[in-house]
């Protein structure tokens, strides 16, 4: 019983840990896509931010400076995407793919050139890495059965960025539905003509959305290289940007749904790690690769049939041109 409880706690703790970058990236995508700019470059932005953050934190020995650099790097790429797809009215998919490739190559080349550790950044220690935050009362509650361990493992003991990610969920909902910015953002993704004729600049709204996206992707990247891991490793996003995109569609572009979708994918990931090398009843040992593939397989299955029709923002992917 105790052992089962322990396993459950570990799995849930892993779920939270693994879903944080997904939540941040998916919310980033949400801002961008609700404004009508599709962004498949979440992965690339996250990766570049992870590298930039890891490198800066190693050089300056400061996690917060690293975070700042991570955000700037991601923001820079987001603005490139914005320039290509808003100002130049280019194809948003092509631009996103380009950003993914640039990030994949540039991080390794620059990493090798600067640090000569095979594309890694130096390991972060002490202040150069985000540390887990112990919430008050952890000790006081430690002796209470169930509640104590739950508090210690699931509520307390996470990184600042983790709390930030979960706080962003209701905050994003509030911004979208209770502020002028949110009203205009949603409108510009559905019918930019309505926004334009109401005397609001479509270009400005979309750039603002893309900037929000860049900042959140940057934080997601920083989380990967400076919180869960102690440094950047090449290709460390490992498709999380795409999973986040899947979660966004799965959640029908709604913030609270996004959180649950990301938790689900995080849970599958955590389960995969837990079951690696374990022998399951009836099936026997499951190959590691199968468990690693599970979240992706489930994504396909879920997206293919179980969520009903996901209707994207109507003006999504279409550059705005005043009709003549």
């Amino acid at each position, binding site marked *: 019983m105790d052992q089962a409880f322990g396993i459950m706690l570990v799995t849930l703790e892993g779920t939270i840990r693994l879903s944080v970058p997904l939540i941040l990236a998916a919310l980033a995508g949400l801002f961008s896509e609700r404004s009508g700019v599709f962004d498949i470059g979440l992965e690339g932005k996250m990766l570049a931010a992870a590298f930039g953050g890891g490198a800066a934190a190693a050089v300056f020995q400061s996690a917060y400076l690293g975070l700042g650099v991570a955000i700037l790097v991601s923001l820079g790429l987001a603005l490139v995407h914005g320039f290509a797809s808003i100002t130049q009215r280019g194809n948003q998919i092509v631009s996103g793919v380009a950003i993914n490739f640039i990030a994949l190559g540039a991080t390794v080349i620059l990493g090798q050139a600067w640090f000569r550790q095979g594309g890694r950044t130096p390991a972060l220690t002490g202040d150069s890495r985000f540390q887990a935050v112990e919430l008050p009362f952890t000790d006081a509650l430690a002796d209470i059965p169930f509640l104590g361990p739950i508090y210690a493992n699931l509520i307390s003991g996470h990184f600042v960025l983790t709390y930030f990610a979960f706080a962003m969920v209701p905050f994003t909902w509030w911004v979208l539905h*209770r502020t002028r910015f949110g009203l205009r953002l949603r409108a510009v993704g559905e019918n930019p003509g*309505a926004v*334009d*004729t*109401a005397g609001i600049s479509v270009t400005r709204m979309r750039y603002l959305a893309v900037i929000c996206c860049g900042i959140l992707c940057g934080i997601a990247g920083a989380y990967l290289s400076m919180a869960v891991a102690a440094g950047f490793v090449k290709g460390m996003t490992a498709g999380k940007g795409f999973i986040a995109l899947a979660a966004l569609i799965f959640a029908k572009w709604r913030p609270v749904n996004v959180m649950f979708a990301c938790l689900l994918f995080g849970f599958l990931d955590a389960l995969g790690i837990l079951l690696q090398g374990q022998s399951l009843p009836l099936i026997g040992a499951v190959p590691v690769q199968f468990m690693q593939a599970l979240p992706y397989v489930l994504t396909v299955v879920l997206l293919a049939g179980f969520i009903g029709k996901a209707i994207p923002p109507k003006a999504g992917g279409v550059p705005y041109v005043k009709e003549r």
Partner: protein
Amino acid sequence: MDSLAIELRGIDKSFGAVHANKDINLQVRRGTIHGIIGENGAGKSTLMSILYGFYQADAGDIFVGGDKIVIRDPNVAIEAGIGMVHQHFMLVENFSVLENVMLGAEENAILNKGITRARAELKRLEEEYSLEVNPDAIIEELPVGLQQRVEILKALYRGADILILDEPTGVLTPAEADHLFRILEQLRQQGKTIIFITHKLREIMAITDEVSVMRRGEMVATRKTSETSVEELAELMVGRRVLLRVEKGESKPKDVQLSVENLSVKDGRGVTMVDNVSLDVRAGEIVGIAGVAGNGQSELLETITGIRSAVSGKVTLCNEPIDVTGDADPADLRKRKMAHVPEDRHHMGLVLAFEENENAILGYHYDPEYLNGPMLNLGSIRQHAQKSAEQYDIRPPDVRLKTANFSGGNQQKIVLAREMERDPTVLVIGQPTRGVDVGAIEFIHKRIIEMRDAGKAVLLVSVELDEIRSLSDRILVMFAGRIVGERAPDASESELGLLMAGIEEPMEAAE
């Protein structure tokens, strides 16, 4: 009463090689309804977009209430008290009425206060102008008439004194249009100035005080409505005399060529779009189907022509059944002498990126006449296209020109030429003159009558009631997927209008 609300002096605007507005002068008196009429592409919408700050004029000045202003963007126009109701509504469909009205006029960064104010203001406007609408209703669930009302409310909410309406009746039923006219009348009485853009002469005569006529980018005349006539305006619009009513003799119907029995069709969502429809079309007659867009006419046409499959029912073409519930095939039906002019020439009738001659044989390209073994015989295709361009007065008569570069009227003629000259037994036509200028309408109508007189069975669907009335020998009215009545072509417009609104017993509804 005599002061000017708006004055335009020497407005000029070009888009590349297209000179959309040439040295336009216009004076609109305060507190009047001023009509602007002209054919499609005459430059009416461009002119109004300039006035609303959507485009900037290349030259010319704008005066609002006597003061010269530069309208850089819609914000300036809104501040100057100009509001616009666009032809294609500028509404966010999945937003509520309230959210749409507030958009761009929210007051604070956080919406709370704005919402309270907008609710109060909507209530006031509702009482003042009797513009009732539920502020919490979602736009896409409202009928178009109400959506348009939201557009008007949006303008009034921003304090508009001058209201521009761009082709406002195109999407409305006759009853809804009448209601709109009453609203406009009331707005005028409250001192608002209204600019009413349309290509329908009847509407100009019905509600405007003054009317300005545009032709090919120029303002050709301004008249007091009481001192002009439909004939004069039509002539000014087109630049020559036009026949407004097609001349046609008695029809001489013969055998039934197309017969539809108990046809039912569902759309992709499983909603019944055509509900147990039966009709016959005889050789030598035109059967017109009237109705507001979206009442199943499109689905009916597509099913008869083999594009969409039916749930149940029978269709026979020249006494031979068409497998409408199974795999009826448009290509096969064409071989069986059914020609189809689709409702939407851009999506179904033409490939806009093709050259004219390629579109002229589209769907008939298997004809040995155009083939050289497995290859297309380009020489004979172009020769054929050249001939039909002459016969159907397609301008410019350049068969190598990209189809997208032809005007709407000429594009429609390309489709008509292709379908009519094959000597079909049954001709199915949807919206023959949508987006087509008056001159071309006259030509197209004559051709349709000629087809009838040559003994073809013609099934005509149009949302233009005038067109249905002037061409048809029998009128069927479609509402919510059903045929709700059959009338002779001389039935009154109000009678047909009530049927189109689904009111089958006019006596009750006439208050």
